[in-house]
């Protein structure tokens, strides 16, 4: 043992970064070095497998539309969760927040009594407001009270769900205005409106994250909070804003869910937050903060959806979906870690203490 260690030490702590291997590695594998390589490969492989098994059904317009619709609502949640994870935080409350926002929205729409777009838009405003308030509570507790985000959002996970049940007496509400239901089943050029809405959210969130000062500060806070403070970034306000965004998107997802399913479905969202986090992590976001992308989350979100649909078409039990998603998640994170370690060693002599 001892001799192994002493043999290793010089080679791993040497400062010479042996440029030849590093540069060839970089030259030959730009594609494989891309952070989204593993997850994209996994998605493409799944698509190929299911196409080979039953292409005509799997790739039919109907099935593609269904897959997109099934993925849209979780995608909206996952985008908010991605922002939070990039700041080195976590948001377990988005599923409960979705339910609470939907419930309050239905209650308000019912009280107003409209059947048309007026009531529906009021409902949207209410859902987004309620979601934003829950997010603001999360954000204030994380940013100003310095509490652990997992604990805070575990608290609001229970509190928001409980509150939704208090409001409804535990019964699901189904009084959704017809105009909203029309939106839920409506399409533009064959694409469901809900999918378009999720796509627009993803586009805006991606542009904001990667091209604006807001996005850059989000990465900086997650990467090194102290550095962000010293750089004059208003870290507490920014962090609160991130949780508000996550909450607002949960509210929007709540409203979209009402439009699609016509019910508050109080009991059906207990795993939403974990599914959203899975999408973000599959998409390359790091729980340590500072790393992540919306494009990655979109791809990561697609994997469980494609699996669920493909397994049914392949005639297998859909329960396998959770098994495979779990395996892909662990494999993707593990491979990414191995790759990063190897790359780090190649470029800086491996001696940097972390």
């Amino acid at each position, binding site marked *: 043992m001892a001799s192994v260690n002493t043999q290793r030490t010089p080679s791993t702590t040497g*400062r010479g*970064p042996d440029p030849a291997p590093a540069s060839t590695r970089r030259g030959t594998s730009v594609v494989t070095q891309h952070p989204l390589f593993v997850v994209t490969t996994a998605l493409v492989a799944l698509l190929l497998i299911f196409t080979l098994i039953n292409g005509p059904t799997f790739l039919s317009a109907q099935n593609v539309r269904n897959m997109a619709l099934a993925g849209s609502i979780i995608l909206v949640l996952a985008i908010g969760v991605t922002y939070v994870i990039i700041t080195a935080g976590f948001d377990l409350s988005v599923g409960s927040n979705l339910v609470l926002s939907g419930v309050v929205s239905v209650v308000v729409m019912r009280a107003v009594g409209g059947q048309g777009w007026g009531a529906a838009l009021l409902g949207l405003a209410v859902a987004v407001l309620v979601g934003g308030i829950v997010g603001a509570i999360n954000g204030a507790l994380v940013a100003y009270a310095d509490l652990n985000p997992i604990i805070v959002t575990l608290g609001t996970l229970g509190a928001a769900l409980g509150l939704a049940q208090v409001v409804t007496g535990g019964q699901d509400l189904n009084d959704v205005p017809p105009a909203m239901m029309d939106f839920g089943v409506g399409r533009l050029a064959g694409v469901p409106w809900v999918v378009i809405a999720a796509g627009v959210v993803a586009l805006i969130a991606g542009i*904001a994250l990667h*091209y*604006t*000062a*807001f996005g*850059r*500060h989000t*990465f*900086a806070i*997650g*990467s*090194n909070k*102290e*550095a*962000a403070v*010293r*750089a*004059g*970034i208003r870290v507490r306000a920014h962090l609160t804003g991130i949780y508000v965004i996550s909450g607002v998107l949960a509210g929007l997802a709540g409203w979209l869910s009402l439009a699609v399913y016509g019910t508050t479905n109080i009991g059906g969202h207990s795993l939403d937050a974990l599914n959203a986090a899975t999408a973000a992590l599959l998409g390359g976001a790091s729980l340590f*903060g*500072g*790393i992540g992308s919306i494009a990655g989350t979109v791809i990561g979100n697609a994997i469980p959806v494609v699996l669920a649909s493909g397994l049914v078409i392949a005639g297998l039990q859909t329960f396998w979906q959770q098994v495979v998603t779990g395996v892909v998640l662990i494999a993707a994170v593990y491979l990414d870690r191995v790759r990063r370690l190897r*790359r*780090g060693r190649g*470029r*800086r*002599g491996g001696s*940097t203490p972390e």
Partner: protein
Amino acid sequence: MTPTATETDIALRAHDIRVSYGQVQALRGADFECRAGEVTALIGDNGAGKSTLVKVLSGSMAPDSGELFVAGRPFRATTPTDAQTVGIETVYQDLALAPDLGPVQNLYLGRELRKRGLLGLLGFLDNKTMTASAAQDFERLGLRVDTKRGSVREMSGGQRQGVAVAKAVSWAKSVVILDEPTAALGVVQTKGVLDMVRRVADNGLAVVLITHNMSDVLSVSDRIEVLRLGQRVARFTRAEATLENLVAAMTGGTADASAPRPAGD
């Protein structure tokens, strides 16, 4: 050897600074000054009050009493950004970089350039201009950095320290404070950073170098101020300083014949 500097030559002056942590008096009437175009080393043994004085000079701590002057004007800072507005930048020992961001992104962190017009108002970044300008900054300081590099995490310790120094230098209008900039570096990397420090001073800024390393002090400083038990106990010009009398002043041992001027002139 007694330069009678006017107040405006002195970029940053601290007078009679006192700071207590409960019963402990960290600074007991400390004085300090540094001049534009010079590297002023601030040295002292552990517990001499260096870190506290750095916090006061960099504006991250308000002293219990005492005065600060920037270019002769009274200055009172309560946050690092207050100090930044009057032109003082600080590079901290623990590398205030965001490791997942690239060198250019770190250089501009918190002060990003935005695009012109509506996009700028929406917060869109002008990465092209930032990258071009950062490349110039790095080159001026003799720092070899790939501006396209994705994250500073992948760079060497010396390069990262270089980016941290460049970040401070590119924003400083009068004073750059470097807190133990070579503490974690090897011999070659240390030389690189010290060369950079020298260039910064030659470009006209006042550089304050806090370090434990006497050979760093002797190789790059124009002036040396020695802190002991919360007070300035000695000042040297580079010509006067030797390893022996620096150590003597730091430890309170008997200085030899070429004793420095007493402090508190």
